[in-house]
């Protein structure tokens, strides 16, 4: 039976008061626990964004370099929204005559012209996308997008016109007809595997292989590759293509070839590496803005957090102070008695310090529990959040040329799911802070208790 037991019994004697205080203190403590976690989460989000931006930029730069001789010619409807995340969003797709390819082939300096036909299913699905900060939006998009390619072995080798990440079966090859290469999202959607038959555009195709989409966009793309003639037949677009990839013999020819094509076919959108580079520049600018905004948020977070923690600290100490002052007042006679029967000032003081510290220790544990469970919510309320869409909060990404494939896969679109988990270190610090604040708050009340005149024991009220 020591001071500790007495402290425990005293706290449990007035359960309601102890409970209310513990809840009040607990929330202060929860703020202290969840805020550092929120800061860390924001820092991590900012770092992840930076890393994502950098790797995307590098990849794009590499691809642009690799495809320096490429001149893209597209019909309207593609381009602006042809990046992976937005694939299939365009409604008005127009096509061009296949004969244009032959005409372009005859332009001097042209090495190869690769034909593509990309068509989207008429059928659509309606999907809810998780936006940043819990905002959702619903989109309607085609069930699938089929790209028909010319299965010329040298095209396949030189220009990477087909996906490379085959996870099952085989890739398409020259002479394939009536077969399809599906991405894993689409096999999952259809519930088929290699060797099964799927019906697309009313035609039956045998699945020969499955590939994985590189990168992870917000949208689960559902795409397929077939022989271009199969695509034309199925879509009823015989003799039509949607895109031509024109390759120049030499980089120095690119500008002149592009000029000739633009002049001859005004309806085509012609882009060269220079356009792509300038697109990249634009992206770079937007990325930088977003990053700056994220960094600003992080530093703002720290300022806000410091203020909020200060408030929580002061609130905690004040709560302990008032509760302990009240307790001391209420127990004047008891304190007088203890002193009358031989307790020293220090014995009395340490008794009340112990009670205050114990109270806040329990509150600290409760607070950590609340803080851990409620950290995402609390830090969401208390701290500014990083928006992956930049300061404006609107989607401004224009992912660029379609043929360069991976351009659309911006990890950043998925970066808004930050996990806010208080670390063990934070918890231990919070417990320490709780006890310290308890001690701080009960210092004056305990001193008052110690100063109680022993003659108070004789008061008969």
């Amino acid at each position: 039976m020591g001071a500790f037991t007495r402290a425990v019994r005293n706290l449990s004697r007035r359960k309601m008061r102890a409970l209310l205080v513990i809840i009040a203190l607990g929330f202060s403590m929860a703020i202290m626990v969840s805020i550092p976690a929120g800061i860390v989460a924001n820092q991590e989000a900012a770092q992840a964004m930076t890393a994502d931006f950098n790797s995307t930029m590098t990849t794009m730069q590499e691809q642009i370099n690799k495809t320096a001789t490429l001149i893209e010619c597209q019909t309207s409807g593609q381009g602006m929204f042809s990046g992976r995340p937005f694939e299939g969003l365009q409604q008005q797709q127009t096509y061009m005559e296949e004969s244009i390819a032959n005409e372009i082939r005859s332009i001097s300096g042209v090495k190869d012209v690769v034909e593509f036909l990309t068509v989207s299913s008429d059928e659509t699905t309606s999907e809810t996308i998780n936006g940043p900060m819990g905002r959702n939006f619903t989109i309607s998009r085609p069930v699938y997008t089929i790209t028909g390619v010319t299965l010329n072995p040298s095209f396949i080798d030189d220009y990477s016109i087909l996906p490379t990440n085959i996870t099952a079966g085989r890739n398409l090859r020259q002479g394939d007809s009536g077969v399809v290469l599906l991405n894993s999202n689409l096999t999952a959607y259809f519930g088929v595997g290699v060797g099964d038959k799927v019906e697309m555009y009313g035609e039956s195709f045998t699945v020969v292989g499955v590939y994985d989409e590189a990168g992870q966009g917000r949208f689960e793309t559902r795409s397929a590759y077939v022989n271009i003639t199969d695509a034309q037949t199925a879509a009823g677009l015989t003799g039509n293509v949607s895109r031509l990839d024109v390759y120049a013999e030499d980089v120095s020819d690119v500008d002149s070839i592009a000029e000739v094509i633009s002049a001859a076919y005004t309806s085509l959108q012609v882009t060269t590496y220079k356009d792509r580079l300038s697109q990249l520049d634009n992206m770079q600018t937007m990325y930088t803005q977003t990053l700056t905004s994220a960094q600003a948020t992080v530093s703002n977070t720290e300022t806000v957090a410091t203020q909020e923690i200060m408030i929580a600290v002061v609130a905690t100490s004040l709560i302990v102070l008032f509760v302990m002052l009240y307790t001391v007042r209420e127990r004047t006679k008891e304190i007088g008695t203890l002193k009358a029967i031989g307790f020293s000032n220090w014995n009395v003081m340490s008794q009340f310090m112990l009670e205050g510290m114990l109270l806040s220790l329990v509150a600290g544990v409760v607070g950590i529990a609340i803080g851990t469970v409620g950290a995402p919510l609390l830090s969401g309320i208390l701290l500014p959040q990083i928006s992956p869409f930049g300061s404006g909060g609107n989607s401004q990404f224009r992912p660029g040329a379609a043929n360069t494939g991976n351009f659309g896969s911006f990890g950043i679109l998925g970066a808004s799911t930050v996990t806010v988990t208080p670390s063990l270190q934070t918890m231990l610090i919070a417990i320490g802070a709780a006890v310290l604040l308890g001690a701080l708050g009960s210092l004056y009340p305990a001193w008052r208790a110690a100063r109680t005149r022993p003659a108070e024991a004789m008061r008969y009220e």
Partner: protein
Amino acid sequence: MSETVLRTEKLFKTYEMGKRKVPALYDLNLQVNKGEFVAIMGPSGSGKTTLLNVLGCLDKPTSGKMILDQVDVTNLPERQLYKIRRNKIGFIFQTFNLLPYLNAAENVGLPMEYGKRSKSERRQEARRLLDLVGLAGRGEHRPQRLSAGEQQRVAIARALANDPAIILADEPTGNLDTENKFEIVKLLGNLNIERGTTIVMVTHDGHVASHSERVLFLKDGKITKEKKGLHLAKKKLACPYCGSKIQPTDERCPTCRKKLVAAEEEESI
């Protein structure tokens, strides 16, 4: 001449009420010998509580001298006084002043807590003291489970805890019914006789005071009168005049009809 346990010389205590000075103790000289059972009577405002506060080192006199167990405690600082209170004085209060969240044994053990005894020794001693006051086996009970008389017994056991030189009792029967009142006085009397415990008891009940050896009358902060008590406990509840058997509650001897009360309450008012 027996040993003096408590002695005061020219004790003054003055309270200041605004600009007026109110004397609570006025040139008070008192001597209590070892093994004595002294009762102090007086009307309200006579300075009883003030005297007990000063004797119990709960308050300091304005002037004068007080010697307790050969130690001049008059000017001791608080850092030494608490030890005097702990080891030399046992306090019994009118309202028992037990800690409600501790059981009887724990309450008895409180004054020993910061002493030299080990935990098990303290527990053993608490049990022994509870036996002594007739509460064997009730150590686990919290105060609210005990009757008023039992609570005061616990308080007496607590007062005995560090084997103090003197027990100071402030109206120990003030909150008790007649039956319990005499049980408690009897217990104090027995402790005095059997253990030689020195007791100073403040009361305004003449009947209770008559159980002591010596009754001092306090008026306006001074001892105005002193009477020999009947010390009924010492006489094993026999009439001091005719020797016949009496009950502790008897106000007159049933045989010889002589008064067994030391002083009428009215007398002191």
